[in-house]
């Protein structure tokens, strides 16, 4: 029903910078003063409520543009004439938001929904660029204790990436403290149906990840006694995610999960794990829209 849609969400606990409220207050007070002065006209009809999170996280679009990732339709007007037009080249931005409720609980701090560009289909999906600009935007606001990442991946919309293979990042992530150890849970969810991912695919995906990681990640054997085997009715640990609540993910169910240990824990590493799982699914012939998550098995100390 939906066109190919990518959603990336970062989860954790955000501690806003001490100056943040002051900066936001200055901004909102200036706007309120102008509203009182009648600056807003009666014909304004846009119904949306302003959201602080959405307001700030929309800066991720600017950040993407700075990297050269065009994500919106854009017309440049100079001296009364349109002199340039640009269309999305990386992904087609749709919506962005987050939850910064300051209660110390794990929240979905930032998410971004985008259309996957399919004319022509691209090599892979823009998981890493979106996660990067979201993480960078959160870093402008304060300090994030990152606990997990989820990704809605319309795998049929992208071609197998023959230009870059995830195993090429193994030396990058091997360059880390060999004594550090983080236990991570990986899950795959999808809609039921003929081409659905099932638990039968778990072994092939787990083996594919183990091989791609080339020692930089230790994939735990099935049945290993670890925190990753802990199940919860509300979903994987480290995530504030309810697939049934999401417009695009309603009806999806967890097909399988497995655990691994890593030498570092960051959005960068989580993206790598998610991308390896996606490639493992593709290699196993499971090219369906899926949600892949990577999250800490236990809350950070």
């Amino acid at each position, binding site marked *: 029903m939906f066109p190919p849609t990518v959603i990336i969400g970062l989860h954790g606990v955000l501690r806003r910078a001490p100056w943040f409220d002051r900066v936001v207050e200055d901004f909102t007070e200036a706007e309120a003063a102008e509203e009182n002065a009648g600056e807003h006209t009666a014909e304004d009809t846009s119904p949306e409520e302003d959201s602080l999170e959405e*307001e700030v996280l929309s800066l991720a679009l600017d950040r993407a543009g700075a990297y050269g990732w065009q994500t919106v339709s854009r017309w440049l007007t100079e001296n009364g004439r349109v002199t340039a037009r640009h269309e999305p080249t990386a992904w087609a931005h749709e919506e962005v938001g987050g939850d910064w409720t300051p209660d110390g609980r794990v929240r979905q701090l930032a998410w971004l929904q985008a259309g996957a560009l399919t004319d022509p289909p691209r090599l892979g999906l823009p998981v890493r660029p979106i996660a990067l600009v979201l993480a960078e935007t959160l870093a402008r606001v304060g300090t994030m204790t990152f606990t997990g990442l989820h990704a809605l991946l319309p795998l049929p919309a992208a071609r197998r990436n023959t230009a870059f293979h995830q195993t090429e990042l193994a030396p990058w992530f091997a360059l880390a403290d060999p004594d550090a150890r983080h236990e991570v849970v990986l899950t795959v969810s999808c809609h039921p149906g003929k081409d659905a991912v099932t638990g039968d695919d778990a072994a092939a995906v787990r083996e594919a990840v183990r091989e791609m990681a080339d020692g930089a990640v230790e994939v735990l054997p099935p049945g290993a006694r670890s925190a990753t085997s802990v199940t919860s009715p509300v979903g994987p640990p480290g995530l504030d995610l309810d697939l049934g609540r999401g417009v695009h993910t309603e009806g999806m169910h967890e097909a399988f999960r497995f655990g691994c240990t890593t030498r570092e824990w960051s959005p960068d590493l989580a993206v790598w794990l998610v991308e390896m799982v996606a490639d493992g699914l593709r290699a196993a012939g499971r090219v369906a829209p899926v949600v892949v998550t990577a999250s800490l098995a236990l809350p950070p100390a």
Partner: protein
Amino acid sequence: MRIRTGAASAALAGLLAVAATAPAQADDREPTQPPSSTYSNGHGPGVAAGGGVGAFVTEGDRVHFSHTVRGAINAHGWWKRLNGPAKKAKVTVWLQVKNNGHWYTLNKGVKTVYSGGGSGKRASAAWKCTNLVAKYSFRSVIDVDIIGYPDDAHKKITDTQTLFCGT
């Protein structure tokens, strides 16, 4: 320095914009044409768009399904000042559907906003799909009317999206 145009010119600009669009949600509605010229200076229409406003960009997302509202599609438009004296603009976004070879407006959003983006600085138009089975083509048209300065006369139309959303 802020340029204030007063409610009268803004209302006039609004009437002009409304006159350029057909009522939504009627089967016998007339095809909708985007506005061909924008200039809200408090002295009425007819002034050629020209220099003085400096440089700005008009931005918009393609028509898409809402992240939070089930069975609804959205379109947004906003602007950013690059240089020059402009401070605020009236942004209008029309959400349109194609039927029998013509484009019709389903809904329209108007907001007078500062330069920027995000929920507080953009105009939005939404449509609640009557079903999620029928396939239609959608697009949005964005007009940025810089308050107090002539801007441009260009129709900003986003790429057509094919969505399963009944109208």
